[in-house]
């Protein structure tokens, strides 16, 4: 097993055990020879992706995903010392929870995405009119929407219409239980993409930004 594979395995074990000290030791000390952004890209991001996929497949729990992304976000913010977005320029990305009061989903998304070194604005709980104003004022390129209830998920269609009518060119990526249990729903509410995992959303953004 090469060194990077070993670091990944050890980091994953540490994260699943919610052992922040070991995780920090691996990234800060044992990988100190590598530039910070390489540590993020080569070890932290793939490990978080593995844990996320494990949750989707039933091999990991939401608690694992929450604590892993929380530990990694703290490590990465410290490691990059505020120099988010790494080596490449990155579009403006924001996340909001549409109408629901349960914010865990959007926090996990924020923590996971920031753990890859990419900055994301977190709006918290928003209703449609407030969110339209924020997104247009801030010039957001990609808006991630987290929902828990079907009624909130259906509001995305209204959000899309209002953003379009204001001429706000933002792409909408939706996630959360209603979209996970009904894979056709994202198209019916006129979203641009659905991601069952935070890093899937990031992958879409990267692909979408590539020259066609």
């Amino acid at each position: 097993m090469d060194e990077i594979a070993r670091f990944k395995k050890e980091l994953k074990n540490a994260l699943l055990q919610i052992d922040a000290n070991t995780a920090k030791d691996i990234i800060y000390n044992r990988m100190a020879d590598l530039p910070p952004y390489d540590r993020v890209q080569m070890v932290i991001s793939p490990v978080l992706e593995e844990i996320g996929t494990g949750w989707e497949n039933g091999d990991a729990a939401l608690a694992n995903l929450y604590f892993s992304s929380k530990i990694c976000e703290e490590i990465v913010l410290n490691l990059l010392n505020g120099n988010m977005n790494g080596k490449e320029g990155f579009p403006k990305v924001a996340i909001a929870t549409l109408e629901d009061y349960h914010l865990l989903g959007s926090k996990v998304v924020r923590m996971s995405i920031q753990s890859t070194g990419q900055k994301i604005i977190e709006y918290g709980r928003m209703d449609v009119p407030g969110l339209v104003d924020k997104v247009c004022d801030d010039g957001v390129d990609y808006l991630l929407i987290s929902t828990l209830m079907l009624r909130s998920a259906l509001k995305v269609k209204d959000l899309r219409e209002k953003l379009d009518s204001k001429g706000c060119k933002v792409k909408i990526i939706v996630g959360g239980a209603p979209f996970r249990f009904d894979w056709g729903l994202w198209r019916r509410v006129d979203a641009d993409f659905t991601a069952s995992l935070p890093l899937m959303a990031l992958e879409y953004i990267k692909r979408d930004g590539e020259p066609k």
Partner: protein
Amino acid sequence: MNHEMTPMERTLTALRHDEPDRVPTFLNLTMHGAKIQGIPIKKYFSDPDAIVKGQLALGKKFGNDCYNAFTYSAAEAETFGAETIFYEDGPPNAGRPVIGSFSDIDSLEVPEIDNTRSMMVTIEATKKLKKEVGEDVPIIGVVISPFSLPIMQMGFENYLELMYSDPARLRALMKVNREFEVDYANRQIEAGATVIMYLDPVSSPTILPREKFVETGFGVAQKSISSIKAPVIIHFASGRFLPIVDKVIEMGVIGVGVSNEEDLGAVKTACGDKLALVGNLNGLQMPTWTEKDVEAQVKDAISKAAAGGGYVLSDNHGEIPYQVPEDVLGWITASCRKYGKY
């Protein structure tokens, strides 16, 4: 089978792992009771007579094999002082949590059910339903498990933090919640509930790793369920449970709600005659189902789980979304009558 059973006979036979005349259907309908009467959801959930009228109308229209007087999950958090936000087209949401910091748990007291209107609505509606249906139709009582209630009491994120950092306060919170929820379950049973649906999504391996559940939620469930004076069906509200099936069998429940993320055939094999299965039609997909979709889904579920009894056709979450059209509900019961005969 020569005679048509009553819904009660059908359900109890199935739950005993015998084959009734046909597979029972539990359409877990709450908000549709308001829809069918054309009244706002908030008004419906505050009026026991409206609930009874709505349930009876739904039962008559769709041939459902159960009634329920459940209103909304946030009602149980309301009892502790939480705010509820109502909508016209979906289930009420719990608002800002009442437990702001872990130390708030130290002064938390068991609320009096009699002093909380939202709890008494369900109890009164259960009594009235029982008077109407007697022993012909089972009435499903519902409680949020003491272990899952804190999502609404303190927010999901804070609850996960508490679980992993402050075991003493977790125990203190469970003691208060257990006393409250067991009392609430038993009050529903006294009022006429036949069986209690114990909603415990946090115990699902979708939310918690098995080892954490064994250390925490399992004991809470076992103690609570042993104090509830009627049979209990545990429901993980769309969460998986196969990785903890051995512990669920140990809990002393008679059945389990199955997520559509788990294969019903695999679940049937794992549970055998130890647990009856309730599920697992995908409620979130129901709004777009055609009659053919419904037939295919119902046939598939029945073919995987109905043999030998121990199966109730139902949705995977424990509540059918408001957006599901009446046609779909009718097709589900009609398909079950057609394909669910033993």
